[in-house]
């Protein structure tokens, strides 16, 4: 039986007085690719920030690799690699300099030059961040999340802005991480990506976990109600419609 590396139970959090997380619960097993799906404002990125210890739930509990993120920040930061939605680097910082800078933060980092090659940025080592394409910037942010050799990696809106080729390469990189035993939490709006990559997904809606399980199961359940459902995108949209009707 695989070990649970992330255990979120009934997490609730208000930001500026507004409830952002109401009741979020899910577990992630070692070596699993776990998707977090949901419409804008569902609490996906807030959940990711709770996993990093940057935000602390007011209710419920979160354990990551056996640690409480906000109590053991140092341990969490060494264990978990993050790629945050919309976090950028100074435009004048070059790709290799960024990797080497982040490598200096960790006790056992990956080789910077080899990592640049691995994410397809071998030719851009001296390119300033501000002159990179959106896809190259995304790949660099993945490399920064990986450089510390993490056990768990949290990727927020990873493939947004990537061209099809860049997206394919990045998804292959995630599969490569899983083969190495890294657990991946993938926050995404792309249902095809979630269907192809994720072992299980959680659907968040208005700060609450509404559904958890393998994508194929969500599709099968939805098809039971509506035979026209073809894929995860159909099943997900159907679930959201149902949730909105029931609100």
């Amino acid at each position, binding site marked *: 039986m695989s070990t649970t590396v992330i255990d979120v139970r009934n997490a609730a959090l208000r930001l500026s007085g507004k409830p952002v997380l109401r009741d979020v619960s899910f577990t992630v097993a070692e070596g699993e690719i776990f998707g977090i799906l949901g419409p804008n404002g569902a609490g996906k990125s807030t959940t990711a920030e709770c996993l*990093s210890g*940057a935000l602390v739930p007011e209710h419920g509990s979160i354990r990551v690799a056996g640690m409480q993120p906000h109590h053991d920040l*140092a341990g969490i*930061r*060494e264990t*978990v690699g*993050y790629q*945050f939605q*919309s*976090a*950028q*680097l*100074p435009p*004048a*910082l070059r790709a290799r*300099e960024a990797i*080497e*800078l*982040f*490598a*200096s*933060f*960790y*006790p*056992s*980092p*990956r*080789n910077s030059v*080899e*990592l640049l*090659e*691995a*994410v*397809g940025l071998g030719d851009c080592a001296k390119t300033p961040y501000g002159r990179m394409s959106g896809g190259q910037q995304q790949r660099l942010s993945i490399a*920064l999340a*990986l450089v*510390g*050799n993490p056990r768990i990696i949290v990727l927020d809106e990873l493939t947004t802005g990537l061209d099809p080729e860049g997206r394919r*390469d990045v998804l*292959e*990189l995630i599969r*490569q*991480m899983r083969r*190495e035993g890294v657990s991946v939490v993938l926050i995404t709006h792309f249902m095809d990506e979630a269907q192809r990559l994720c072992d299980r997904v959680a659907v968040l809606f208005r700060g609450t976990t509404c559904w958890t399980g393998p994508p194929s199961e969500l599709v099968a359940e939805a098809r039971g109600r509506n035979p026209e459902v073809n894929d995860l995108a159909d099943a997900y949209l159907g679930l959201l419609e149902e949730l909105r009707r029931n609100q």
Partner: protein
Amino acid sequence: MTTLPSTHKPQPSATAALLGTEVRLFLRSPVLLFMALGFPAALLALQGLLIPGTRDPLNGAGSMSALDFFVPMALSVVMASVGLSNLPSTLGGYRQLGLFRRLGATPAGAHRVLGAQLAVSTASLAAGAALAAVIAVWALGARPPEVPLAALAVFLLGSVQMLALGAVVGSRARSAQSANGIGTLILFASLFFAGVWTPGPLMPEPAAAVAGYTPLGAAAESLTAAWYGQPLDLVPVVVMVLWTVLFSALAVRLFRWR
């Protein structure tokens, strides 16, 4: 896409790497370089080389020139331009990029980049002041400080004070542009009270009455006294100490990582 690389030990420490990165970013930014090194030097060169008669003694041979009076002003400009322009715009820019948030998720933590940025700002301020002093004394023939230690002490206090004020401006700014806008506004007001635009008796009476109580006005007044060997008035020094304590406390209280 190849296989993920193996591990190896890092060479520099996180603090050294962040410091090196901040230095590189500073050297690659024409705006930061100009505000720290070019702006004060350009003001001095303008005074000394382009305005006729500024290097001539005002009251006969051996007396002070108009340029002599301007040297402490130029050093005050260095304090203000680094403290009110470079530091806040960098902090606002980092917040806008989400860099503090990103670094906060690494073992280094976000506080180290703040330390590295303060170190680089301090070093650039010292370099700008050294350059301005060298140009003034060796290239333009202005008088060196009469009491170097007192001038240095006042300069250090004034610099800490202006960096603390810059940290207040940068503590909440959501972008480099907003930090720069607010910082520039305070910078030009400060330069006015320091006497850069209307030196000595040319400053309007009401402004002159309050100038010594403003952060840069107090710094310029004390630095001028120390530079020319006049007795150091305690009031502007106390004013600087109080502003420094207030700005430091405010910067710590108001600072937001995101």
